[in-house]
C-alpha cells in the first residue's frame, strides 16, 4: 500500500472517509456505550507528543534558552533571566548575578568551610532545568519540606535520584557523599540560591 513513501489516492480517500465516520459516531458511542473514546484534539496531541520524545529528558519544549544563559554567564550583564517555570534570576549575590551564583555550584570548592553542594552536571541549561523541576515539585507539594523565614521560602526537595554530591571541607572529609536532595531558597518568584545537599 505504501509506494515510495506515498499513499495511493484510493487509500487516502478511504482514510478520510473513515476518519469522518469516526468523528460523527464518536460522541454517539461515548453516550450510548459509556466508554471514553479519544476526540480529534486528543489524537492530534498524541501525534505532537510523540514527535518531541526524541529530545533528552531535560530538553522539554520549555527548556531554558542556552543563548540567553550564556549571555549572562559570560558577560557582566545584569539583565534578569526568567526560567521556563517562572523563577526570576536577578543581579545580586557576591557573584554579581544569581545565575552565576547557581553555576558556582557546578564545581567543588574543597576549602570552603562546611558543606558545598555540587551538581553532577556542569551545563547551565541542565542545572537551571533541575532547579525548575524542584520548583514545580515544591509547588505541587511532592516530596518537599517547606520553611518560611521572613519573606523567604526554603524548600528541601527530594528528587529520589542522585543529582550531585557534597563537596567543601566537610564533604571532602567524608569522601564526597552523593546527594539526591536540592535545597532551594526563593523570595516570591525570585531565585536566591539552590544546591544539592544531604538531610
Amino acid at each position, binding site marked *: 500500500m505504501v509506494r515510495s513513501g506515498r499513499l495511493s489516492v484510493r487509500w487516502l480517500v478511504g482514510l478520510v472517509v473513515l476518519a469522518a465516520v469516526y468523528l460523527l459516531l464518536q460522541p454517539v458511542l461515548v453516550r450510548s456505550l459509556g466508554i471514553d473514546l479519544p476526540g480529534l484534539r486528543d489524537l492530534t496531541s498524541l501525534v505532537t507528543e510523540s514527535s518531541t520524545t526524541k529530545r533528552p529528558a531535560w530538553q522539554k519544549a520549555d527548556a531554558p534558552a542556552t543563548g540567553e544563559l550564556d549571555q549572562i554567564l559570560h558577560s557582566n550583564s545584569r539583565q534578569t533571566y526568567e526560567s521556563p517555570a517562572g523563577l526570576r534570576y536577578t543581579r545580586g549575590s*557576591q557573584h554579581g548575578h544569581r545565575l552565576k551564583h547557581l553555576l*558556582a555550584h557546578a*564545581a567543588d570548592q574543597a*576549602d570552603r*568551610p*562546611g558543606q558545598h553542594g555540587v551538581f553532577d552536571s556542569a551545563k547551565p541549561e541542565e542545572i537551571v532545568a533541575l532547579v525548575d523541576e524542584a520548583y514545580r515539585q515544591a509547588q505541587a507539594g511532592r516530596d518537599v519540606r517547606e520553611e518560611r523565614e521572613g519573606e523567604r521560602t*526554603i524548600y528541601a526537595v527530594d528528587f529520589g535520584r542522585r543529582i550531585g554530591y557534597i563537596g567543601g571541607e566537610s564533604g571532602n572529609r567524608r569522601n564526597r557523599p552523593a546527594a539526591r536532595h536540592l535545597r532551594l531558597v526563593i523570595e516570591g518568584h525570585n531565585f536566591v*540560591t539552590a*544546591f544539592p545537599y544531604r538531610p
Partner: protein
Amino acid sequence: MPTKQTMYYVGFCRVCKTGPLGLRCCGQCGNIVLLCDECDAVWSDADLAAPPQYAQGGDLPCPACEASLIERPSHWATEEQIQNVDWLQEAIHTGALELKQGTAFAPDAEDDESPERPASGG
C-alpha cells in the same frame, strides 16, 4: 581561576543551613556584620535568633549607612578590624560565637572584569 580570599566566620547560616557566616566590613562606614556566604542573609549583631536582613533590589545595603556590602570597597573583615568591634569580642569571649578562619565562596564581584568560567582541569 579567581583569587581566593580569606574570610573569618562564626558558624553557619540558619536560613539556608549551609553558608558560613562571614564577617563583612562595610567599605564606607567600617561597620561589621555577619553575612551568609551562600544566601546573603545579614545579621547586625550576635543575636542570630533575630530576623536577618535580606538583599533589596539585587544589592545588600549596610544596616548602618546603606552603602553596598557586596560592592567594593566593602570586604571580608581583617583580624585587626574584628578586634575593634565590642559586641563581636564579647560574643567570642562568652562563647556565643566561635571565630574561625576559612576561604570565601565568591571573589569580590567587581574583581572579575574578565568573564567568569568554570576552572578547567584539576
